[in-house]
Each structure stands twice: as C-alpha cells, then as structure tokens.
C-alpha cells in the first residue's frame, strides 16, 4: 500500500466525461494526459498550492494553502494530512488546521513548528515558497467544537498544542460567540507564543475572551493546582486541552477525580513520534520479509528502528493515522508510543510508526 491524497470532489459531468474518455487512454486515465497541459487538471489526488507563508515565531510558520478543488469543509480542531516530495521521496505528515471553516478566500492554513531532526517541518518552516504544490489528504480528527456550543468554555494549551485551539477561537469569533471563554496557554516566553499577538488582540476586543499566559521560562509549569488557581470555576466549564502527553495525563487524572471526565476533551498531538524518549524497555525486531534485524531503544518505533538498520519499509504519516505502514506482528508485545499502552499483539496488524517493541518481536515486513 502506498499513502495517497484524498479524492477530489468534482462535478458529476466532469466525472462522467473522464469515465467515457478513459476508453482512449486506458490503462492510464484522461487525467494523466490533461496533467501534461496543467498539473492541476489531474483529479487523481487532492492538491493545493501554497499562497502565503507567515512567520509566527522564530521556529513556527503558518502555511496558507489554496485547495485546487472545492474544499470538503472541516470542523475547527481537526487535522489534515499534507504530502510533499522532498529529494524525490513523497512524505506525509498531519497538521492541525488553524484556519476556520468559512474563510472568505477559500484558503486553508496549517501552522507548523520546527522539529529538530524532522523531515517535513524544516521544509515548511524554513524553505517552502508560495507556488509550491502540496498533496492534501483527508480531514480527520475527533477533537472539535461540539454543536450546539457549550455556554462556558475553558481552553488549555501548551506550546504548539495551541493550533487546534486557535482554529476553535477563530470559529467562535466569526460566529460572534466569544461570550464566556477562558484560555490558559503555556509557552516558554512571551515571544515564543504562537499566535501570541493575535490572541492578545482578541482578548482586548472581546470581553468574553480571557487569555491567561503562563511563561514557563520564569514561572512554574502548568499543573492541575495551578489551573485551579488561574481558573477557579474550571469544574463548570467544558474543557478543551491540547498539549504534551505529561500535561494531558495529569489533567485527565484531575478531571477523573472530580468526576468531570465527560467534560474534558483532549488532543494528544505530537508531531514526531517514535524517534526515542519516553517509557518502555525497547527491544529487538526481526523483519521477516526484509530479512533484517534491528535494535530499538526506549520509545523508538518499529519503523524507525528498521529504517536505521537499512530495511526499506512502507511508511506514510508517521503518526498513527494513515495505516500505510502496517505489518502483521507474528510474535511479541508492542508499546504504543503515544499512549504508553502495552499490548500482546501476536497475529494482529500493527502500525509500525507508533508502536515500539517491548522485548523481542517478529514482524512480517
């Protein structure tokens, strides 16, 4: 399997024409010949064009994309897979959509934070130019504003976890619904805060939007106790939390203890997973098809360990979304590097990008 973009939405007539004229182009599609004239005429995959790049902080940028086909729509908080060829190889990553659904220009934006050692984020943050064509995957994700809107809202975000929250706040503002919103955001410094200036502007103009910044460079890190001090009525509010795993873990426990689990919505969003760090024992992998043996340290995914050992393995989003990288686990236990959950998964298909070996494993890849 190879990861591919979403199917573009095109008119019934165009679809019919493409089917009929296929008699002339088989085994290719009419799209393949139309693309010779203009690559954007191919309807094989959803594509978009980068129209603007806006620097947000020293290491984050917003990429504004004009979709080449009618946009299927999204809910604030959802994410989008983006594909781009880098040095001849197509890579995919998922990024939260930071624009709100009803943008007047019909554009969509994602905000990307530079990740050390990453493949795609350095290109997006440092090099990408307007005019670059990108492939657009499906819009996905369950972390989104409910309908109808809750009366009182609490947003808690940390670092680049701001991105889905930003999309939600934009939507609330557009619908004139920033009535009773508290937003606690944690960043290292004031300058480090993505969308800092925009959100401070919102706070000035809208009485119903209260922004509380926690700068961990000079203050203690965000904790449930601190959250209680900053927003004493937290237990009355529908809470949306997006940030690193350890923050989510402690807040989840706090809400569970208070019997408020149903009112907490979280996004465990980590742009790069499986490159090491975190819990687990690590282990060794035998790739049965590639006939390759690999060693993986704690938090190193099956995929990364195999690649480092020279195996050529299928991969896609590298964050557990697209299922391009799956292989049948024949023996052993794996740990999900996102949740830490360990499963004895013999005989099951596992995603190699988000699972790390826990001891020795055998996999059909």
């Amino acid at each position: 399997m190879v990861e591919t973009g979403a199917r573009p939405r095109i008119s019934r007539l165009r679809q019919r024409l493409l089917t009929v004229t296929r008699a002339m182009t088989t085994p290719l599609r009419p799209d393949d010949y139309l693309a010779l004239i203009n690559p954007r005429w191919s309807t094989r995959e959803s594509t978009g064009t980068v129209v603007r790049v806006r620097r947000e902080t020293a290491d984050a940028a917003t990429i504004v994309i004009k979709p080449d086909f009618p946009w299927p729509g999204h809910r604030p908080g959802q994410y989008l897979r983006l594909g781009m060829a880098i040095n001849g190889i197509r890579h995919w990553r998922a990024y939260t959509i930071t624009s709100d659904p009803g943008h007047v220009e019909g554009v969509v934006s994602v905000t990307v934070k530079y990740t050390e050692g990453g493949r795609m984020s350095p290109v997006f943050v440092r090099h990408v130019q307007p005019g670059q064509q990108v492939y657009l995957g499906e819009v996905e994700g369950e972390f989104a504003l409910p309908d109808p809107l809750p009366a009182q809202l609490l947003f808690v975000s940390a670092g680049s976890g701001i991105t889905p929250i930003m999309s939600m706040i934009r939507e609330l503002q557009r619908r004139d619904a920033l009535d009773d919103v508290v937003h606690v955001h944690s960043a290292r410094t004031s300058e480090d805060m993505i969308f800092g200036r925009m959100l401070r502007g919102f706070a000035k103009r809208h009485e119903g939007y209260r922004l509380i910044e926690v700068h961990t460079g000079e203050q203690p890190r965000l904790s449930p106790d601190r959250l209680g001090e900053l927003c004493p009525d937290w237990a009355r509010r529908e809470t949306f939390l997006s940030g690193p795993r350890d923050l989510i873990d402690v807040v989840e426990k706090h809400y569970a203890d208070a019997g408020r689990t149903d009112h907490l919505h979280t996004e465990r969003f980590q742009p790069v997973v499986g490159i090491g760090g975190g819990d687990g024992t690590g282990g060794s992998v035998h790739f049965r098809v590639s006939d390759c043996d690999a060693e993986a340290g704690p938090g190193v995914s099956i995929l990364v360990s195999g690649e480092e050992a020279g195996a050529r393995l299928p991969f896609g989003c590298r964050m557990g979304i697209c299922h391009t990288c799956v292989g049948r686990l024949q023996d052993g236990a794996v740990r999900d590097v996102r949740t830490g959950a360990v499963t004895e998964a013999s005989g099951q298909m596992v995603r190699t990008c988000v699972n790390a070996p826990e001891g020795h494993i055998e996999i059909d890849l």
Partner: protein
Amino acid sequence: MPYDPTNPLYRLTEEQLDEIGRELDALHDAVFADLGEADANYIRSMITFHRRLAAMSRAVLIFSKYKPAWLIGTAGLSIAKILENMEIGHNVLHGQWDWMNDPEIHSSTWDWDTASPAAAWKHSHNYVHHTFTNVIGKDKDVGYEIMRVDPRQPWHPVYLLQPFYNVVLMALFEWGVALHDLDFEKIRKGEKSPKQLKDELKAIGVKARRQITKDYLVFPALSGRHYKATLWANVTANLVRNFWSHAIIFCGHFPDQTYMFTEDEVANESRGAWYVRQLIGAANIEGSDLFHVMSGNLGFQVEHHLFPDMPSSRYKQIAPRVKDLCERYGLPYNTGPFRKQWGTVQRTILRMALPGGKPRHKPGPYVMPPEEKAERERLRNLVPAFP
C-alpha cells in the same frame, strides 16, 4: 554431480559465495542510499515524454489517410509503446521506483499498455521467474512452457513445430505473455482453484477488451471514413512493439553463454549462490544509450537479475563493479552484440526442436580490457552516481 562440469558455480567455495553475497548486498545498499531527486526526475521525465509522444502520435494518426502522417504517427506510436512497456512499465512493476512513495508511480497501482494484467504478471515474472531464474521445471520462463531451449528439457514431437510457432509468438507476444501468466502446468495438475482461474481469465478478458477497444475501435473511428488506415497503423505499432520486446526478452536468458540449472542443483542455495546463478544465468546486450533505453535497460540483464528492484537507470553505473567482481572470482560476464545474442537464441530454438543436443560452449572467466581497467581504477571508491 553437476550436469555441466564447467559451471563456475562449483569452483567457488562456501566462503567465496558468502563474500560475493556480502559484496553485492553492499553495492545494492550503496546505490539505494544515494537515490534522490535526480533519479525521480529521470523516471518522471521519461513518463512525460512517453505520454506526449503517444498523444501526439495518436493525433497525427487521425489524418492517417495521408502517407506521411501514417508513417510519422505509426513510428511515434511504436516507439511510445516500446518505452511504455520496457523502460517504464516493466521497471515500475518491478518496484524499482517504489522508494519514491509516489502513489502514481508505484508497483501496487501501475498498469501497462499491454494485454497482460499487472497483477498476474507481477506473480509470474517478479516472483516465479526472478526467484527461480533458469531452474528447469521451476522457472516457467525457460521456454515459456511451449518451447524447448535446453537439452535437459525432455523432447516431445510438438517441439518440431517450435520454429514455426516461435514466429507466431514474436508477432503476438503480448498475448502470449498474458496467457503465460496463467501457468498452464498448474492448471493441468489441478493446483489452481477454479475460482482463481476464473478470476484470472476475467482479468485478462477485461484488459483485452479495453486494449482492443482503444487500439482497434475508438482511435480508428476518430479517423472517420479512413478508419482502415488508422486501424493498420495501430496493428503495426503493436506488432513492432511485440517483435522488439520478444527479441530483447529472449536475448535475456537463452543465448549460448547462459547456464541453466536443475532443482537439485539449487536446493538449499545460499544468498551468494543465488547471486551467482542470476549472474551466469542472464546475458547482456551491448549497445548505445539509446538502445538501452529502448530495451528498458534489459541490455543490462545481468545487473537487472542481480538487483531487480534497483532503478534501471543505475544499471549502467554499476556494470563496472559487477565486471570487477566477475574478474576477481573467475566468473563469466555474459554479453555480446545484439545480432550475435539474437542469432544464438534462434539457433538454439531450431536445434532444440529436434531430440538430443549438448550444452553449448561457454565463455571462460571474464578478463577486463585494459581501457576498462583504467576506468575501473577511477571508479573504485565512488558510489555509482547518476549521470
């Protein structure tokens, strides 16, 4: 006891075979570590060139009632079909470009402009032929189950007709390949479930219908009253492609230089021995760069059989390394001009139609000409780079 005592495989020790395995694995990995933008651009521009040429040739052929248009259009379409089948289709279906992770240039999604459905061909060619290369009884490409090309294949009176039906096969090669994928031996022995056979026949039927509709109905119809001229142009282009691919493919394993093996000889073979079987079981064709592109780089059949998943554009660069290895281990490097390779293949087909026969004389270990030796010294420590 080896059938052919001169077979160089039996002169090599276990350790030498392991060393050969390691060396060739390392060469493969060095090339794959170096793949990038330039390689991607090569296949993309080849695909673009093919599509432009095919589209323009089809357009010219609308006016095929005019002689020059017929000639130009037919020549263009023939070349387009050859490029599409050989340098593009064959190699994409081998997975040579899968590393690009591009869903449009990928062995799992590609289909080619020939009668054979991609899925069936990938099984019979990529798996059966490339794994059991030249093993009589296992590799169904040894004579394609209809011809006798080695004295060890038992003779049958039907082979008296093989010089005749070989010519028919040349003309109808794409249909021969499509039927060959069905694996008649498996069907005869009842090893194929009726369901699978039905599915495969259906796939061939669908593919055939689409191919015939396109070449022999739709495009001729575009020429209106002069449909016959376009019909003949398309028939000619398919014939040219069939003759050419038949010639190139038969030169891959049936020239006199190559070795065939029995199942006993290859039982429990090591990785190194597998490489050596590929090396001495295939034969190259000498030619210009243009010749190599037009033959899908199968003029580098030896390199292709060592590394079937390596982008074809890299074979020329690794050829000096392979020759170097042949020289050091006293192995032959099978190659020759097209006329000679093709001639020996036809002679074998004629001779094997009759009972009996002896193995042909084989070339000895490869000795590098002095000018190539100098080139080798220059390349010794370089990763084979794209042009």
